[in-house]
């Protein structure tokens, strides 16, 4: 317990002073993106890891949040930062509708429904040009030239997300979510309204994912449907972050976010320019290999199987 608290304090302090230690905008950018993925991964983990409702369509909520911020800024001429506050609630409202449709299905059928939902809304966003500008996308002017404000906003958001989910999981709701994951029929017979609590889980998850999307709008200052509603850059990435870090662990998605963003960037930059250019096309292949490796050798992810990893590494040394 004491070492846990100590490591938490160390991580917190390092996170707070990181941008002061590292002046490079490039590395600051990477960490900002990783922090955004901490939020999305943790949100996905609440729904899929703890509640057992695996979503293949979290890009829906990410995109709705991003477009909420973007549309507020361009159509209503209010700051996109107001949009950031609204991105979460609008995504949560949207999640109510998604839950109403998709929670009629269970297990893999629910997953497929969210997959379809993500694609549907991407097509809607592409074609509803009067609202979304379609493929032209939405362009804003960034509020800050320095990375620092974005860094601290992303850090605050990630911390808030982890704390909220941690608190929820240590309450009655947490027990109910896990019960639903383990057996819906048993949960229902024990007095748990599975319909209600699955929707609560989805709502919280969508809220944070949407807020992350609105943050992305503010930070990157450009979105189009193929980016923010992307199946493989958002929905699948959310799953990878969760699986690699550790499904149904508190810190798993946070660890997974940094690993996956690191891997993605290493390959996107063709191993920092050292490898031939075609390597940069290979990150999807490497993602696939990582998933296979994780499923075969550490099904509970880096955090969930940490003891196992330590044991093996230790044995190698001895």
């Amino acid at each position, binding site marked *: 317990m004491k070492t846990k608290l100590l490591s938490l304090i160390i991580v917190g302090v390092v996170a707070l002073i990181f941008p002061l230690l590292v002046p490079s905008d490039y590395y600051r950018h990477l960490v900002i993106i990783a922090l955004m993925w901490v939020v999305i991964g943790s949100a996905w983990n609440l729904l899929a890891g703890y509640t057992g409702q695996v979503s293949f369509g979290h890009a829906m909520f990410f995109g709705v949040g991003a477009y909420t911020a973007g549309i507020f800024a361009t159509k209503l001429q209010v700051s996109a930062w107001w949009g950031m506050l609204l991105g979460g609630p609008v995504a949560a409202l949207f999640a109510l509708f998604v839950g109403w449709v998709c929670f009629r299905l269970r297990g893999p059928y629910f997953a497929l429904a969210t997959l379809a939902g993500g694609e549907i809304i991407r097509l809607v966003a592409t074609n509803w040009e009067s609202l979304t500008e379609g493929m032209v996308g939405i362009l804003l002017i960034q509020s800050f030239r320095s990375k620092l404000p974005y860094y601290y906003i992303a850090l605050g958001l990630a911390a808030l997300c982890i704390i909220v989910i941690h608190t929820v999981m240590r309450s009655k709701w947490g027990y109910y979510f896990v*019960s639903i994951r383990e057996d819906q*029929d*048993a949960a*229902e*017979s*024990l*007095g748990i*309204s599975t319909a209600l609590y699955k929707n609560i889980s989805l709502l919280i998850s969508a809220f944070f994912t949407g807020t992350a999307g609105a943050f992305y709008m503010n930070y990157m200052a450009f979105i189009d449907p193929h980016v923010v509603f992307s199946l493989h850059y958002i929905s699948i990435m959310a799953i990878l972050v969760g699986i690699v870090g550790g499904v149904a662990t508190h810190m798993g998605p946070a660890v997974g976010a940094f690993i996956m963003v690191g891997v993605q960037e290493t390959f996107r930059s063709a191993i920092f320019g050292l490898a031939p250019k075609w390597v940069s096309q290979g990150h999807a292949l490497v993602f696939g290999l990582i998933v296979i490796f994780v499923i075969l050798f550490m099904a509970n992810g880096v955090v969930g199987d940490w003891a196992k990893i330590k044991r093996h590494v230790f044995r190698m040394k001895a």
Partner: protein
Amino acid sequence: MALLELKKLVKAFGGLLAVNDVTFQVEKGEIFGLIGPNGSGKTTIFNCINNFYPITAGDVLFKGQSIKGLKTHKICHLGIGRTFQVVKPLARMTVLDNVTASAFCRVNTIKEAEEEAHRVLGFCNLLGEKTKPAKSLPIAGRKRLEIARALATKPELLLLDETAAGLNPSELDEAIDLIRKIRDSGITILIVEHIMKVIMTISDRIHAINFGQTIAQGTPKEVANNRAVIEAYL
């Protein structure tokens, strides 16, 4: 007024009448046995009572009020707990967490729920296993866990679905003791059971069905000597 009353209950799956015109009343404080050969509709009746299956015709009354069509979790809140024949432990949760989760049915804070869970686990003689994951329990433990979980929702009526199946003779005696203890704590029990030793020793009254229809009702002795029951079983 009976605690639970089934009125001309009918449940059809397509053309198959799984339960056909079954009527009985369970009085407060008794152990009411429901028997019948395999596939005679016992578990289906349970599933109709707590609305896992919608009822085709007839009615189910709990404390004089119809509970037909109420959501399963609402029925649990009204005071009907149940166990499953094919046990459904929340496998990756600990034994304590399994029971705590169901105790939230009546309380709101973790502290209260855990206190209630400890009390129930003690009652069911499972306190020694509380930190183990539910999936690591042997079958007898899982059956006890099913009962503990149902008890944690503080039911007035407990539906026990073959809680003695798959137990060895000494475990059987423990199961019988536990069921009596539950009744003595003021909970009415409706029990489905195949093992005659269990059902004949503990039931106050027995209702026998075959092919979804009532064939006999009475004290264990009357039912055991009933021609139709003997025919159904032999």
